[in-house]
């Protein structure tokens, strides 16, 4: 276990150090790559700048949050619908399977055409992009509730509402959480990608604006910020998910 952790740390740290050295020693093209330390310095400077925080970071964070919460609420609601109705479940199944086959961001231009540039098309695309993950996992989670648990609940004469709170939801929760973790990753990707393609503000926009102006420092700093943020969010959710699934397996 210790050896594994150590190896993991080395796999992450050694390439970063090697990159830093290579960039410092001029082994890499300075017009393409800048040292990691410089990226971090620029990032810290930018994060200390209120204009950057309020103008670029905050809108992006808010868009991610809204699209994630929307995906969670609609996704769980539709998932419950697909759990209660066999008919809807079987009818929609092939389409849920095919949804992620289509590069969904292609729809962004038509949303821009309808709503103009702004947060609304970004949120809509990110929400729709992450929602099916929640729908599928919610439906599966509820559908796979063990019959014995439901029977116990019924033997206590629980109403459907009580069954939902005390039996179905706790049993389905680990699977729903998996859906929520994936939706979080997808809404981060959705917001960044749409801002990146075409928008007038936000971190995705910061990256493309800096790239178009050959502003390497700000470009790399923003790339670093997005990826650190995504990694932290995913790692935290991943940790909770593993614990949840372990607990539910031991019941």
């Amino acid at each position: 276990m210790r050896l594994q952790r150590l190896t993991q740390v080395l796999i992450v740290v050694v390439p970063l150090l090697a990159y830093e050295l290579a960039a410092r020693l001029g082994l890499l093209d300075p017009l393409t790559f800048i040292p990691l330390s410089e990226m971090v310095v620029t990032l810290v400077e930018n994060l200390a700048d209120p204009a950057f925080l309020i103008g670029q970071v905050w809108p992006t964070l808010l868009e991610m949050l809204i699209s994630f919460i929307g995906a969670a609420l609609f996704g769980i609601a539709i998932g419950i619908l697909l759990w209660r109705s066999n008919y809807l479940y079987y009818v929609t199944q092939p389409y849920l399977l095919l949804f992620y086959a289509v590069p969904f961001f292609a729809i962004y231009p038509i949303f821009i055409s309808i709503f103009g540039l702004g947060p609304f098309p970004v949120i809509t695309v990110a929400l729709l992009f992450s929602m099916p993950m929640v729908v599928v996992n919610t439906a599966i989670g509820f559908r796979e509730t063990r019959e014995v648990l439901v029977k116990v609940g019924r033997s206590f004469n629980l109403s459907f509402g009580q069954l939902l709170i005390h039996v179905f939801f706790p049993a389905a929760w680990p699977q729903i959480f998996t859906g929520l973790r994936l939706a979080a990753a997808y809404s981060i990707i959705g917001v960044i990608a749409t801002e990146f393609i075409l928008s007038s503000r936000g971190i995705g926009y910061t990256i493309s604006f800096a790239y178009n102006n050959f502003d390497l420092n700000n470009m790399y700093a923003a790339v670093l910020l997005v990826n650190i943020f995504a990694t932290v969010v995913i790692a935290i959710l991943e940790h909770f998910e593993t614990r949840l699934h372990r607990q539910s397996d031991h019941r």
Partner: protein
Amino acid sequence: MAATNAPRLTSYTVGRYAIPIILLILWEAVYLIVGRPAMASPLQSVSDLVTNFGAWLPDIGATLLALLISFVLATVVGVTMGFLIGLSRFWTQVLSPILVVLYSIPKVTLYPILLLLFGLTLQGRVAFSALHGVFPILIICMEATRAIPGIYLKVGDSYRMSFLQKARHILIPAIIPQLVVGLRTGFNLCFLGLILAEMFASYQGIGHALMRYVESNRPSAILGLILVIVFIAFFFTFLFLIWQERNELRIGKSGSEVL
């Protein structure tokens, strides 16, 4: 997601065919509400597609070429690495969390870096697109290799097989069912990455054409191109699904479906 034989097949079939029709009606409804010039009706979009199809062919061809190259690249790298890592328990446990994180970070942010490296070339787009597709293939291949029962290899040992023989006759057939699912996901992500790359910066391809029509404000052409994209996505996905079904007929059901 196991496919169950749904009862009352007729009403289910009707329901399944109703969904695309409902979507078309919704599309028409949005058009009637929003109206021109921001939106186009299904009919206008299809007629735009028919009229312009010849003009779009170079873009469609460019996208298909880049898509196939990047998918082959992602497959070769993903299968080889996934297979080799999966053979070692230690490396699988070490690399799994790192790979899962790499799989889920917004890789779109890395495209400008690839652009600085390759410029606006086919290589840049292919590299970016393969970067999207390689992780699901690698992860699924690794896990499938990890899950091969030890007894299979013992059989190989008792026949005194060399490593290559074991790979050919035991390991690869054992992971094929899961691998097809991984390849399908990888292909879909290659396509997603490619369209993103073309939309951000490119001089050709369907994604680039989409952005051209955003500038010239032609919703019917945008929607026509989206139809082309959906068709390409469905066409290849169906090929993968047919392949998956054939495997299942031959070997029986594989593990659970990973979306």
